[in-house]
């Protein structure tokens, strides 16, 4: 922490002068807020790239047969869309951006436990991203396996698998570093008086997420290394011709990639748990139940990976176990939804944009969650496996759940991060368009899936034409909504009216510091006496 000596009392983290100037003052800064902002800008860039790929896919599907691209390009595009959106956007998403920025402030610390490691994690992230995306510019083209890299195709295809797989491996390192950092920060740096059960819920969900990050990511790391081994040395781990078992690859891949869904969704739930009590002006209902359900999701979520493989030919015993565990993991999520709705009961609600995002989060998360239960039932899964229904389900969770929470969080903490208010009317317009576009885009896919349209298909029969047109139009509405939102945020960050310390009447510690916060957040480390949502 080299810049420390230069701090004077009220210079914001955006303006203080450190050892370096200009861009270097950001990309070499170990300040958790600047690292969080670096993540924010890089993730938004990748997100927009991923959205454009998604729009291209939907455009291709507006009519049967070839519309704008050939089948090989389509395969490459859905793979890249998946790789970018999963590994570069939603997995780091909320923890790396808002976790980095808000976690130390919310628990009353000056920084994370290992600031240098924190900066390193961003550099590793960028390095991994460059490696993963370099396949685009190599002869042979980007991979066409889907983001799951299923064996044996992933070591038979002639496309550039190695950069994508190595990139994902490196990105895992970044994720692990963030996880280690957050766990140590939460264990060691809570402000005096902040006992575990006085910690706000967003840090709690980051704690759960960090554990999954450090315990699940290595499994996919080693699996991806084995794929590299397969391609380079032809070892035979997953090659049926050499005695390997491709289903074992699926096991290992999903041992990480299912918990990864909880890496994404837990902090999203945490952000919603911050937004709802603030705008309801009311203490959150069932604080302890939310904490315990967070930890329960993190734990049980580790053992449900097999529900991605119901039609792969697993044993009956495994099928029943995984289906049972899948239903079990739905309980803590339902407890949270119940608590959020109960918090709103008889509350005098402030109708602001972050609240709209939180409320619509509840709506899409319920649809996503309940369709997930449908998929968790064995017999239904056999019918719906690998159809557009699955695509709709996980977009409702990953894009609807995580994306809406991210949007809610960015509006909620916008005054704190940039020290200015956004334009509420434009923000709400953006939200309405995004919400309508989102549902128009994905709801028809449930219908398409039930009637039998497979996922990842380039072409389809005429009877699926109508819903596909609706869906594509939805993607355009969503895109315009996204444009409005981003335009508004960029403009408001420069020209918006100056924000006070606590525009929403929040009770957690980040609302007691300056907007934007100073280098070390607090002039004096606070002593915590009350619980986090004390509105009495």
């Amino acid at each position, binding site marked *: 922490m080299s810049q420390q000596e230069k*701090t004077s009392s009220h210079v914001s983290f955006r303006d203080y002068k450190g050892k370096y100037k200009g861009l270097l003052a950001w990309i070499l800064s170990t300040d958790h807020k600047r690292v969080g902002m670096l993540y924010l800008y890089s993730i938004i860039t990748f997100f927009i790239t991923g959205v454009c790929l998604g729009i291209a896919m939907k455009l291709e599907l507006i009519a049967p047969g070839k519309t704008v691209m050939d089948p090989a390009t389509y395969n490459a595009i859905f793979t890249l869309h998946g790789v970018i959106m999963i590994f570069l956007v939603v997995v780091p998403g909320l923890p790396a951006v808002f976790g980095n920025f808000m976690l130390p402030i919310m628990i009353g610390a000056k920084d994370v436990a290992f600031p240098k490691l924190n900066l390193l994690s961003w550099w590793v992230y960028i390095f991994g991203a460059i490696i993963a995306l370099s396949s685009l510019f190599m002869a042979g083209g980007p991979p066409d396996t889907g983001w799951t890299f299923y064996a044996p195709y992933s070591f038979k295809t002639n496309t550039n698998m190695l950069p994508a797989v190595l990139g994902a491996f490196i990105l895992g390192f970044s994720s692990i570093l963030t996880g280690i950092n957050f766990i140590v920060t939460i264990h060691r740096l809570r402000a005096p008086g902040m006992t575990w059960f006085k910690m706000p819920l967003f840090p709690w969900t980051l704690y759960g997420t960090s554990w999954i990050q450090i315990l699940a990511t290595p*499994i996919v790391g080693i699996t991806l290394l084995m794929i590299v081994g397969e391609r380079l040395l032809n070892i035979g781990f997953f090659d049926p011709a050499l005695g390997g078992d491709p289903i074992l690859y699926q096991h290992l891949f999903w041992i990480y990639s299912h918990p990864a869904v909880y890496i994404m969704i837990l902090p999203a739930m945490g952000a919603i748990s911050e937004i709802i009590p603030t705008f309801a002006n009311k203490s959150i209902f069932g604080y302890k139940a939310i904490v315990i359900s967070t930890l329960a999701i993190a734990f049980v979520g580790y053992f449900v990976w097999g529900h991605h493989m119901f039609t792969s030919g697993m044993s009956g015993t495994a099928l029943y176990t995984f289906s049972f565990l899948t239903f079990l993991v739905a309980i803590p999520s339902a407890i949270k939804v119940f608590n959020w709705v109960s918090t709103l009961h008889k509350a005098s609600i402030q109708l602001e944009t972050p609240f709209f995002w939180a409320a619509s989060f509840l709506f899409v998360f319920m649809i996503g969650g309940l369709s997930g239960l449908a998929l968790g039932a064995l017999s239904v899964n056999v019918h719906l496996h690998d159809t557009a229904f699955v695509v709709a389900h996980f977009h409702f969770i990953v894009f609807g759940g995580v994306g809406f929470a991210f949007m809610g969080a960015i509006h909620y903490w916008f005054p704190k991060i940039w020290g200015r208010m956004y334009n509420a009317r434009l923000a709400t317009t953006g939200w309405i368009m995004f919400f309508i576009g989102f549902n128009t885009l994905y709801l028809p896919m449930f219908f398409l899936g039930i009637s039998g349209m497979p996922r990842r298909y380039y072409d389809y029969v005429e009877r699926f034409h109508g819903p596909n047109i609706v869906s594509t139009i939805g993607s355009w509405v969503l895109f315009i909504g996204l444009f409005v939102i981003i335009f508004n945020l960029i403009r408001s960050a420069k020209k918006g009216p100056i924000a006070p310390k606590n525009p929403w009447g929040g009770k957690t510690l980040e609302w007691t510091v300056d907007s934007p916060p100073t280098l070390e957040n607090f002039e004096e480390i606070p002593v915590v006496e009350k619980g986090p949502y004390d509105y009495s």
Partner: protein
Amino acid sequence: MDTSIIVEDEHRDDEGSKLGMWLFIFTELLLFAGLFIVYGVYRYLNPEAFHLAAQQLSVSVGTINTIILLISSATIAMASSSIRLKNKKLTLILLISTLVMALIFMVNKYFEWSGKIHHGFFPSSDTLHTLGNGDTLFFGLYFFMTGLHALHILVGVVLITIVVVRVSKNTLTDENPVLLDNSGLYWHLVDLIWIFLFPLFYLLT
């Protein structure tokens, strides 16, 4: 607290560093756990072939390497005590013997590997393909797992070398032994993994 003093010493939290190191060790354990799962499944599917293939490996080389690693673990653990007792000379001796032990391990490994490769036991070799799928998988796993383990040994050697340099320059003393402790923890992890690799590849014949 006197707020007029803005300049403060660098944040230091030994307990936190140790916790961080342990969390990293957890990720390493899970990394190898993935490979142990693969080993377990393929052993279960090819019991006879794994049984016979393991006889190709020399139990004596494996035993010697195990004992070498155990001794090196003990020496670095003792270094953690000696640095606290302010015995710089003994600390250096213990650390350097750990390094020497690591090098002997690697030399043994080198001869073992080159012997196997010389006899045609290496991934995707014709010898293995004619022997059958069980042997292919056994030796694939053998090279992959011991290779990854050897990579960890090399990382450990680099870490301990840094510690040796810092101890000899007196920048690492009984005041701040946490880097030595954490390198020790890492080295014990390498030992821990070998404790499981050894019976799985050399003894279950």
